[in-house]
C-alpha cells in the first residue's frame, strides 16, 4: 500500500469557471496544493470559497455548468486525470475515496446500506470472498462508531439519522481502501463522541497505511488536531498554505487571523 512516489495528489494552478446568466464567473482561481502519503491536507476557509468545487474536480465530477479553465491535476503521479479522456474511471473509488458534502443525498435512497457497501467491496476488493463479505461490511460500519452494524446494513438511508448517513458514506469511501481519501465536511453532522471515533479511525489509517487525506472542514480545532498541512481558501483562492502548526500559530494572512479569532472558546 505504501507508495514510493512522493505525491498522491498534485493540484497545480487549477482554475474553474461557471457559466451563468451574466457570463462566466470564476469559482476556483489558480489553486495549487499537494498531498503525499501519510499527509493530511486540511482545506479550510469561508463557506462558498470553492473548497467543494476544488476537490470535486479531482475526481472529475463537477456540476454540468462548471468547467476547468486552466491548471493540472494529477493523482498518484502516473494516473492522470484528463477530462477529455474520461480517465477518472480508473482512479475513482479504487485509488481515490471521496466523501461528499451533504452525505444525506449521496446514498441511493432505494438500496439498503448493506447492498451499497457490498457493491463497492465487490468492485474494489477482490481479496474479500463472498463468505467474508458480511464480516467486512459489519467491520466497515463498526469502524464508523455504529454499535449495531447489522441493523444499519439492513436499513434504507431514509431510516437513518443525519449523522448515521454521514458515517455510512464515509464507510463507503473507506471500505475500498483507497490510497487517497478526500473527505468533504465528513464530520459536520456528527456529535463529538462519534466524531472522535471517526477521526481516530482516519488518523490511524493515515499513520498506519500511509494514506493521503484531504480533509475539507470548517472546524479549525479539528483541523489543527489532525492535519499535517493546511490550505486556507477564500473567494476561490488559496490565501495561505503551510504546515498546520505554522498556520495556526502564526497566521500570515489577515483572513486566517480573523477566522482563528472567531473560534468559540471553550
Amino acid at each position, binding site marked *: 500500500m505504501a507508495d514510493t512516489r512522493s505525491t498522491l495528489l498534485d493540484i497545480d494552478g487549477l482554475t474553474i469557471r461557471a457559466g451563468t446568466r451574466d457570463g462566466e464567473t470564476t469559482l476556483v482561481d489558480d489553486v495549487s496544493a499537494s498531498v503525499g502519503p501519510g499527509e493530511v491536507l486540511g482545506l479550510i476557509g469561508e463557506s462558498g470559497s470553492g473548497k467543494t468545487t476544488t476537490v470535486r474536480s479531482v475526481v472529475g465530477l463537477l456540476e454540468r455548468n462548471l468547467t476547468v479553465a486552466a491548471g493540472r491535476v494529477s493523482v498518484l503521479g502516473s494516473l492522470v486525470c484528463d477530462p477529455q479522456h474520461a480517465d477518472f474511471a480508473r482512479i*475513482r473509488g479504487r485509488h481515490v475515496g471521496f466523501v461528499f458534502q451533504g452525505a444525506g443525498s449521496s446514498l441511493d435512497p432505494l438500496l439498503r446500506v448493506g447492498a451499497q457497501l457490498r457493491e463497492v467491496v465487490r468492485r474494489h476488493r477482490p481479496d474479500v470472498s463472498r463468505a467474508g463479505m458480511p464480516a467486512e461490511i459489519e467491520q466497515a460500519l463498526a469502524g464508523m462508531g455504529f454499535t449495531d452494524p447489522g441493523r444499519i446494513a439492513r436499513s434504507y438511508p*431514509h431510516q437513518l439519522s443525519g449523522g448515521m448517513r454521514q458515517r455510512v458514506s464515509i464507510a463507503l469511501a473507506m471500505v475500498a481502501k483507497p490510497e487517497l481519501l478526500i473527505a468533504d465536511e465528513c464530520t459536520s453532522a456528527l456529535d463529538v463522541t462519534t466524531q472522535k471515533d471517526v477521526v481516530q479511525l482516519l488518523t490511524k489509517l493515515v499513520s498506519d497505511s500511509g494514506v493521503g487525506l484531504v480533509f475539507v472542514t470548517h472546524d479549525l480545532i479539528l483541523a489543527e488536531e489532525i492535519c499535517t498541512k493546511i490550505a486556507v481558501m477564500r473567494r476561490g483562492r488559496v490565501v495561505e498554505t503551510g504546515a498546520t502548526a505554522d498556520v495556526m500559530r502564526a497566521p500570515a494572512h489577515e483572513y486566517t487571523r480573523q477566522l482563528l479569532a472567531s473560534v468559540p472558546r471553550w
Partner: protein
Amino acid sequence: MIKLVATRIGLGLVTLFIAVSGAFFLVHSSGSPAVQILGESASPERVAALNHQLGLDRPLVVQYLGFLGQLVRGDLGESLRYAQPNATLIMERLPATVELAAAALLIALVVGVPLGALAATREGRLADRLVSAVSLVGVSMPIFWIGLMAILFFAVRLHWLPAGQRDGLASLVLPAVTLSALPLAQIARLTRSSMSETLRQQFITASRARGLSAARVVINHALRNSAIPVLTIFGLQTGLLLSGAVTVEFVFSWPGLGTLATNAVQGRDFTLVQAVVVVGVAVFVITNLVVDVLYGIIDPRIRDGRV
C-alpha cells in the same frame, strides 16, 4: 398482510362494480344482438321475438340486477350469440392473448428499457435522437401497417416466418414484435425522461465517485430510481394489451380475446362484453396490486410513507 390483501380485494371489487356497471349501460345504450343473430333481412317482429327470448325486453334495471346477482354467484353468464358459457368462450381465447401480450411486453421491456437508458446517458446527442426516432416509429405508425408490411416481407417475400395463425413459436414472432411497437416506444421514452432526471442527483455522482462502472451505476442505481413511471406504464400496457391487441389479432388472425371482445361489442353480445370486462378488470386489479406492491418494494420511502 392479510388485511392488506383483504382491502385490495375489496377495492378490486369496487373497480369491478364500476367497470361492469359502466360496461352494462354502455352496451345496452346501443342496439340489440338480435339483428346480428338474425341477419340483414330480419323483420322487426322476429327481432322483437328474439329479444323477448333473450330477455332483452325486460326493464333495464331488472336486467342489471339480474346480471349483478349472477356475478355475485360467480357466474359470468351465457353468451347471447354463442349460447355458450362466457367463461368457456373467454378461457378458449385467453391463453393465446396472454401468450401474445406477454411476448410483446417482454420485447418492449427488454428492448425499450436499454434503449431509453442509452438515450438518457447520451442526452441531446446523436444516439439519443436516433433512439427517439426509432422508438417513436412504433407510436406513430399504424399497427396494421407494420403488421401487413411484416407479413408481406418476412412471410410472403422471404418465407422466414408464417404469415399468421397461432401455430408454434415461429408464428408468435411477427405478431409479438408488431404488438410490442407501441409499448416499446412508451417504455423507451419514459425510461429516458425518468432516467435523465435521476442521473442528475447527487447519489449518482457519489456512486461514480466510488468508482462503480458507468454500466453498474446505470443498472443498479439509475434504473431502479427511474423505475416507477416505467413500471406504471408497463402495468398499464398489461391491461391495455388485452383489448389493444385487436388490430394485431385481426391482421395475423390470432385467435385471441381482442377479436372476441370486438366481435362481442360489434355484435352487441351484452353478456359476453360484460364478461370480457370482468376478466379485464380482474387482470387489471391483479396487475395493479402487483404494481402497487412493487412501488413499495422499489421505493421503501413509499412503503414507510408519511401520513
